[in-house]
């Protein structure tokens, strides 16, 4: 019985390369032929990728390869950039996320995001977490909701005595966990993390990584990171993006390889992936 091999890492290496039908993994995002343009320049071209439920999917690759551009398509944050435009489609549980009649705000309500730099609101700790639920009309049991989100983000014990204090007085690592709590408070299904630890020191980084391990039980997580060790530590699946340089000197991001994390780091199928993960390039 193939379905029994749900176990996180090792036994599922066959699936991608042999393109065996993935029966035991539930697809959340099905990305088909996605290209992203800023004005006339192509940022990422022709990405095909499936992202699975309750797994951590890491996007790695050198600077400028379009990882952040790509992840910002998954909750339509790129809509905020007037010149951005996409080709191809992203199916979220089978529904076209960019289809007509889809409201970006309701997309983002289910697909939360945490950014590179901690960006707490200039409000109290409590109000930061309560802001989403309040504005989205989830006012019932707000105190419990805030506590639950802060607990999930492993911040509750540190802040429970000072919920009314300004969030800006927290340390960088605490602020980032607060931002995660803020995203969790509206009970999303997916959490997108765009280099969430790049502005943090190693200790704060490690606490964020522990947190990611915990969170994948309840959420689907996509994380952009330029830190390969981090991808190796936290991710079940890893996608390696790189730059395609054309003859005229123009360059755009492409998805080189997507597989089980262990596979990417130990037996990559593509020589470019191997060059990157062994440190020969990027």
């Amino acid at each position, binding site marked *: 019985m193939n379905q029994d091999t749900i176990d996180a890492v090792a036994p599922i290496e066959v699936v991608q390369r042999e393109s065996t039908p993935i029966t035991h993994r539930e697809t959340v995002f099905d990305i088909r032929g996605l290209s992203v343009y800023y004005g006339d320049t192509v940022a990422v071209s022709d990405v095909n990728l499936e992202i699975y439920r309750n797994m951590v999917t890491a996007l790695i690759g050198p600077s400028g390869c379009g990882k952040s551009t790509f992840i910002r398509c998954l909750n339509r944050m790129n809509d905020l950039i007037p010149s951005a435009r996409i080709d191809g489609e992203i199916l979220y549980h089978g529904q076209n996320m960019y289809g007509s009649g889809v409201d970006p705000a309701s997309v983002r309500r289910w697909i*939360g995001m945490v950014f590179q730099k901690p960006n707490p609101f200039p409000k109290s700790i409590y109000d930061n977490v309560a*802001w989403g639920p309040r504005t989205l009309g989830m006012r019932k049991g707000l105190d419990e909701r805030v506590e639950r989100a802060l607990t999930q983000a492993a911040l509750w014990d540190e802040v429970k005595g000072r919920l009314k204090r300004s969030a800006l007085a927290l340390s960088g690592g605490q602020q980032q966990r607060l931002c995660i709590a803020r995203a969790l408070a509206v009970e999303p299904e997916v959490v997108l993390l765009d280099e969430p630890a790049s502005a943090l020191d190693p200790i704060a980084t490690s606490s964020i990584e522990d947190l990611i391990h915990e969170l994948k039980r309840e959420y689907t997580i996509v994380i952009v990171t330029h830190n390969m060790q981090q991808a190796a530590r936290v991710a079940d699946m890893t996608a390696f993006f790189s730059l395609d340089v054309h003859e005229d000197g123009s360059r755009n991001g492409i998805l080189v390889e997507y597989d089980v994390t262990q596979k990417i780091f130990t037996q990559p199928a593509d020589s470019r992936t191997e060059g990157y993960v062994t440190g020969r390039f990027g």
Partner: protein
Amino acid sequence: MSDRAEFSLQPTRQLRRRNLLNRFVEVVMLGAALAAVAVLVLVVWAVISRGYSALSWDFFTKGPSTNFLGTTGGIANAIVGTIVIITIATIISLPIGILVAIYTSEFAHGRVRRLLSFVLDILNGLPSIVLGIFIFGLVVISHQQSAYAGGLALAILMLPLIARSTQEVLALVPETLREASFALGVSRWRTVVGLIIPASFGGIITGGTLAIARAAGETAPLLFTCALTTTQVSWDPGQALQSIPLTIFQDLENPDPALHAQAWAAALVLLTFVLVISILSKAALARSRRKLTR
């Protein structure tokens, strides 16, 4: 021994010349900076020294004396008039200015945004006498001079000031805060009302008060719109009310030296009002800026 000179740490002649020039330019610029400070000090000093003696309790509480040979009375009518006119101007211009700024900064894109900012700049550059004559033609000819007309003229003057300063404060709100709110599925309008405005409230109010300070000293827009006044102290905006800048103008045109002294005293009142408002609002702005960044 001879090649040691190549490593000399003493300045060469050329470098000495440059250092000298450097020093010279620095002194010239410092002089220019001191001149700017000196102008302010001189203005304040001149107004205080000449206006101080005419200040009295009556000066603030009484209207001008109608007795031809007696005391000159006070400027209570002008103080009350200025308060009424400025209140009208603020009630008109503050909400419109803030809404225009929110629209251009948070909602409009690309060309519309640039066009609106450009229009605000033009409006800001309009000579205030033109605003006065505009309201004269629009309102006064068909009705009469009144505090409403004067307030309307000043409102046009304040509108671009408020809108521009609000735009600047909104630009201080980091883009990452908007992103964070949008990423939660919160709409743009809710983000503006619940997050952006509270975060920049101090700065918006600062811009408003600076515009008030500026409008309080304007004379030209009031000349044709709110100048045919009586000496009575009145709060009725339906009639033309005296104002502090106009008092200064009219008193100085009068040959009576006592009225000259009164003009200086009125200038002192105006100056104090403007200085206090400017300093207070700068402090408030600094405070709200700290709140955003820390």
